[in-house]
């Protein structure tokens, strides 16, 4: 039972303290890609821990544990001993149940999110075909509308869309910067990363870490696209475009959650932070990999320690 308990405790620790620490860190803004990876590692670590905890409770009653014991060159009794839990079969059933529930729920939400966004995008594309005109020079679709908007439709045949109001609100340089930003989203397939974090939050809404992860990943992908745009355009130009378009859109009232992200982006564009140094980058990557791999280590650890034992508990039949 020890592995299951340790894994459960680890999941709790990472989902609470770990997520809190990551959320408060400043370094992701300096290395957005790495930041996103960190959030993904954190989330997968939490989920893997829960699933593996459940499965480890089932090991003592697993019918193939004899083969596993032979493989590890240890005795079955010792192996079972490492993973045994009070309640035996009941604990095993509960374990398998939890593992199946978590994995199933995740799979369902991933599928559902994919379906919703795919059909939404498909509907968008057919309406755009009907209503928008294409500007071949700028390679963008233009909608005649008096509210500012600029967005891209990711997925198959990605398209960038703007309104005529946007054309009027921005000058050539600002528009070019915005288009670079949107195209960076399409090239980098950022929608996949966002879909993943969104599905996680939908699957387990009671885990704050996943909601934080979703918000952070969204923020960081915008910053990644800003970084890509800044390679072709001036940072201040992009920042100005950001402010102009934020003002031009219909006021959202309660929906407006984008203010904080917009402020952070403008600050970041105006005074770019030094990118993360190579050593620090590698160290962070190592930590991220460690966090992702700990659940596996915690699960197989007891089995491996059973390998190194050179005795076998003997039980006499009563």
């Amino acid at each position, binding site marked *: 039972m020890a592995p299951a308990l340790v894994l459960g405790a680890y999941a709790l620790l990472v989902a609470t303290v770990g997520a809190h620490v990551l959320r408060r860190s400043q370094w992701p803004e300096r290395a957005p890609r790495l930041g996103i990876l960190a959030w993904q590692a954190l989330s997968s670590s939490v989920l893997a821990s829960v699933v593996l905890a459940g499965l480890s409770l089932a090991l003592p009653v697993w019918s193939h544990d004899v083969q596993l014991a032979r493989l590890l060159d240890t005795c079955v009794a010792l192996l079972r001993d490492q993973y045994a839990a009070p309640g035996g079969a009941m604990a095993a059933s509960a374990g398998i149940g939890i593992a199946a529930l978590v994995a199933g729920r995740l799979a369902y939400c991933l599928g559902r999110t994919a379906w919703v966004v795919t059909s939404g995008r498909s509907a968008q594309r057919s309406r755009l075909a*009907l209503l928008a005109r294409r500007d071949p020079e700028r390679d963008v679709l233009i*909608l*005649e509308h008096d509210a500012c*908007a600029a*967005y*891209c439709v990711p997925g198959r045949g990605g398209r960038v869309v703007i309104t005529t109001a946007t054309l009027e609100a921005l000058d050539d340089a600002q528009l070019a910067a915005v288009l670079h930003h*949107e195209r960076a989203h399409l090239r980098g397939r950022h929608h996949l990363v966002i879909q993943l974090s969104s599905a996680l939050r939908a699957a387990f809404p009671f885990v704050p870490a996943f909601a934080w992860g979703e918000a952070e990943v969204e923020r960081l992908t915008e910053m990644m696209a800003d970084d890509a745009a800044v390679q072709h355009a001036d940072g201040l130009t992009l920042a100005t475009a950001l402010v102009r378009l934020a003002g031009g859109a219909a006021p959202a009232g309660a929906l*407006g959650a984008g*203010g904080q992200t*917009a402020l952070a982006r403008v600050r970041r564009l105006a005074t770019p932070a030094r990118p993360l140094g190579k050593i620090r980058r590698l160290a962070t990557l190592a930590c991220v990999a460690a966090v992702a791999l700990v659940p596996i280590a915690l699960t197989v650890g007891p089995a491996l320690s059973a390998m190194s034992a050179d005795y076998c508990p003997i039980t006499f039949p009563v």
Partner: protein
Amino acid sequence: MDRLWAWDRPALVREVLEDLQRDRKIAYTTVMTVMENLHRKGILSRERHGRAYRYTPERTREEHTAAMMEEVLATSADRSATLMHFVQNIDRSELAALGALLDEIRDPKKTKQGR
């Protein structure tokens, strides 16, 4: 649809076909199928005209676009990435803060003097 919106009157498939054929080669059946599909989707309405139908757009281009933009802008806060907006809708107070920040960045001396 461009033709139908521009003419602003009920039109036969033949009339649309003839106009399209001025730009490119296209078959009667193609135009007919597309217009029938648009009718099925509720974008065009039709009335009998002898043996053929006359089609009219249900909504003007502006109404269509407005309806679509309403939905698009509503998804601005949606995080599932159906669309990816350049900037999300933000409320007035945050907009003011954003404008102030940009002013400060552009002209730090000016802003400090103003205080």
